[in-house]
């Protein structure tokens, strides 16, 4: 009799420990994809633009820093390298490949032009510029 009573009262402590571990894991990994972006980039404000809804998984995000340096996922590259990457990407997924240029507000148009020219060389005539609709 005494033994069965002991079995019935479950020890909750390990379960709570594990649940906490899981919560911490999911909270810290939920926002991983934004880590791939350049966080020092200050996007220009565009309060009237339409907020992006669905993301295309093929989307290529090209960052242009305030000093004009081009990078994809924090990997810096020259416009010539960018061009060959875009060409390869277009060969794989076609001319509808969405390219988003995340240009810093302080970047010169000259450097943005370098990215747009690389897109044009890869046969991409439609590009998007990322802007901040609302500061979080």
């Amino acid at each position, binding site marked *: 009799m005494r033994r069965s*009573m*002991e079995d019935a*009262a479950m*020890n*909750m*402590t390990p379960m*709570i420990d594990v649940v*906490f571990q899981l*919560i*911490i894991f999911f*909270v810290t990994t939920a*926002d991983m994809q*934004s880590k791939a972006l350049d966080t020092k980039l200050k*996007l*220009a*404000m*565009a*309060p*009237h*633009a*339409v*907020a*992006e809804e669905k993301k295309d998984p093929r989307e290529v995000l090209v960052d*242009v820093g305030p000093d004009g340096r081009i990078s994809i996922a924090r990997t810096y590259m020259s416009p010539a390298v960018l061009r060959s990457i875009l060409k390869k990407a277009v060969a794989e997924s076609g001319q509808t490949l969405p390219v*988003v240029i995340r*240009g*810093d*507000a*302080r*970047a*010169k*148009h*000259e*450097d*943005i*032009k370098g990215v*747009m020219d690389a*897109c*044009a060389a890869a046969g*991409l*005539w*439609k*590009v*998007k*510029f*990322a*802007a*901040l*609709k*609302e*500061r*979080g």
Partner: protein
Amino acid sequence: MPPADLPMTPMIDVVFQLLIYFLVTIHPKDVVANLDVFRPSPDARQEQTTTPPKMIRVTVFAEGFTINDRPVDAPELDKLLSKLASIDRNQTILIMCTASSHHEDLVRVLDLCAKSRLVNLSVVSTN
């Protein structure tokens, strides 16, 4: 029943610590918008230097904007673009950027176009 009464105090302590940690570290996500533009091919650009008079040309300089060679400031540009959009939303707006202009100003023009719901936007670079 000794195993049933779990000590709650340490758990509440830990939960509060976690709560404080996440409140302090998590900051709300920025809302990002995408502005779609067309990039005419280089030969198309040469055609456009003999500008058809109907096309609206907005030029972005490092110091300001001009619309069809008339210097304007941002509020005036906004007014003109909304007036143009009320006539025809599908007309092409040619946005010319000088090399030394800031990207911020191009985005501002694109934002004003988005505000007036103009959709045919072409961005070209000039010297």
